[in-house]
């Protein structure tokens, strides 16, 4: 910036927020130009947790990339892990046993709820409400315990295998999951009383950080943030994968596009996920969890493939180029938070400093997913 423009803008100063800052989720760094408390420009600086997942994918075979996937987004690792499995299965034409399909749906949706609960907690923490954060962590812990039962890990699951899953679920798992659904519904009522109805929260969120439909589409914003802007796009409905077309659920849509709309969308998505889990538990068949016959090496046929799943944050796409060997020529991970965050500079300009925190919190970014 030249000294002329600085002088004409008056008392503009820049504030470096992050990468180590209490409310910058992970290691996001925001360079803010402020006039008083008003944000004039916001520039996200990312890349602090870049781990070269795409380069790693080009250097190892398809199976070896499996543990990487859940580490792309550690908050909905299951969705990424199973999403990658589903991509390779579709590519190679591997049939997944019925039971494995249902197990995958259950754990996926549990993971989605866990991710939304964590978002709920940290968002409230950004707004200064510490107690809801601990309540939601309590609920999330229950999910992690349930998933721990079958996956053996808490966050970075490596539960999926090409063709199925590693560990069969038992009766305890299903009863615990059912009990959890009852519990979370009760808790959602409590959250409504404690948080959603709260006048302070409503004041803080309503009309703040409006992402218009046009802006969202231009930046490729997906997931709950897009649905809060009035576009009913959910990969689970648009391109059903992994048996999601068998379940009856709605895609909640709101048109305000503000922080409050994003808040409501996620709460309602938790309810929809509960519905899916309920149906899946009802209908889960007995049987194998891995196909009997599997290829020894997962050789990718020559050509280009694109496969998308709906992660907790939006459209997670995998663009895979194969050349006949089992090592991909190119594996591009199109992560939702990356696009969602890229829309932030336009959204943040003109808001208050405190709103910046609320808005960045409300789009639910996970930095490792952006940096990959």
């Amino acid at each position, binding site marked *: 910036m030249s000294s002329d423009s600085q002088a004409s803008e008056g008392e503009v100063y820049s504030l470096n927020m992050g990468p180590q800052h209490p409310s910058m989720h992970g290691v996001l760094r925001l360079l803010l130009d402020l006039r008083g408390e008003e944000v004039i420009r916001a520039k996200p600086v*990312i*890349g602090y947790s*870049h781990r*070269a997942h*795409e*380069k*790693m994918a*080009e*250097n190892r075979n398809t199976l070896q990339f499996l543990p990487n996937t859940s580490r792309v987004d550690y908050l909905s690792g299951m969705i990424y892990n199973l999403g990658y499995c589903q991509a390779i299965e*579709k*590519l190679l*034409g591997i049939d997944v046993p019925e039971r494995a399909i249902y197990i995958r749906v259950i754990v996926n949706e549990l993971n989605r709820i866990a991710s939304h609960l964590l978002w709920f907690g940290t968002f409230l923490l950004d707004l200064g409400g510490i107690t809801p954060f601990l309540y939601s962590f309590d609920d999330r812990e229950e999910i992690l315990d349930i998933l721990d039962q079958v996956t053996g890990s808490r966050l970075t699951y490596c539960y999926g295998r090409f063709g199925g899953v590693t560990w069969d679920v038992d009766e305890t798992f299903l009863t615990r999951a059912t009990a959890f659904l009852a519990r979370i519904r009760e808790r959602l009522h409590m959250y409504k009383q404690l948080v959603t109805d709260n006048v302070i929260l409503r004041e803080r969120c309503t009309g703040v950080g409006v992402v218009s439909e046009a*802006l969202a*589409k*231009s*930046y*490729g914003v997906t997931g709950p943030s*897009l649905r809060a802007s009035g*576009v009913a*796009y959910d990969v689970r409905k*648009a*391109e059903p994968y992994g048996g999601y077309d068998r379940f009856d659920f709605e895609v909640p849509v709101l048109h305000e596009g503000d922080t409050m709309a994003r808040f409501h969308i996620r709460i309602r998505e938790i309810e929809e996920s509960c519905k899916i889990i309920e149906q899946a538990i009802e209908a889960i068949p007995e049987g194998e969890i891995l196909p009997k016959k599997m290829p020894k090496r997962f050789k990718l046929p020559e*050509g*280009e*493939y*694109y*496969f*998308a799943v709906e992660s907790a944050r939006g*459209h997670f*796409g995998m*663009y895979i*180029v194969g050349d006949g060997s089992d090592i991909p*020529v*190119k594996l*591009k991970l*199109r992560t939702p938070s*990356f*696009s969602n965050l*890229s*829309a932030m500079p*336009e959204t943040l300009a003109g808001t208050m400093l405190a709103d910046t925190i609320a808005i960045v919190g409300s789009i639910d970014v996970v930095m490792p997913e952006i*940096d*990959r």
Partner: protein
Amino acid sequence: MSDGLQALADLTSASEEMDYGKTGLHQRHTASLENVLKVGKTFLDEGYILEMLTCQDLREKEEVMRLCYTFNSLDAVDRHLVHVDIAGGLASEQFEAPTMSNLTGGANWQEREVFEMYGVTFTGHNELERLLLPEDADFFPLRKDFGRIEDADE
């Protein structure tokens, strides 16, 4: 293909239907560097979004750096993959393409990522800086000749 996309026929050198059930892509187009912005505008005007932009390093085999754009419609899934080849062999370092960031905001960061990972310069991009890598990085890690991650014991 919707009516608005008919204009693509003139702008692309090759278009082929793809097996969506298997590849997840509906059509594949090949466009020249001059036409890429027009192709992009055609899609965006039809309400498509730029879903993904990436690049493939094919300098060794085909002597090109290939930009891969996917456009998708949020209303009814219709995914188009657009290839744009930038000529240049292993020896060439300079690759240039026009920026799409003035048409759609989503291109902004994705082009920056392609720039730092593959060294493709997008002309007209107003903040073509490194995004994920350190600002002073002078290498392009996703190029095939950057090397591979060695095994631990090698």
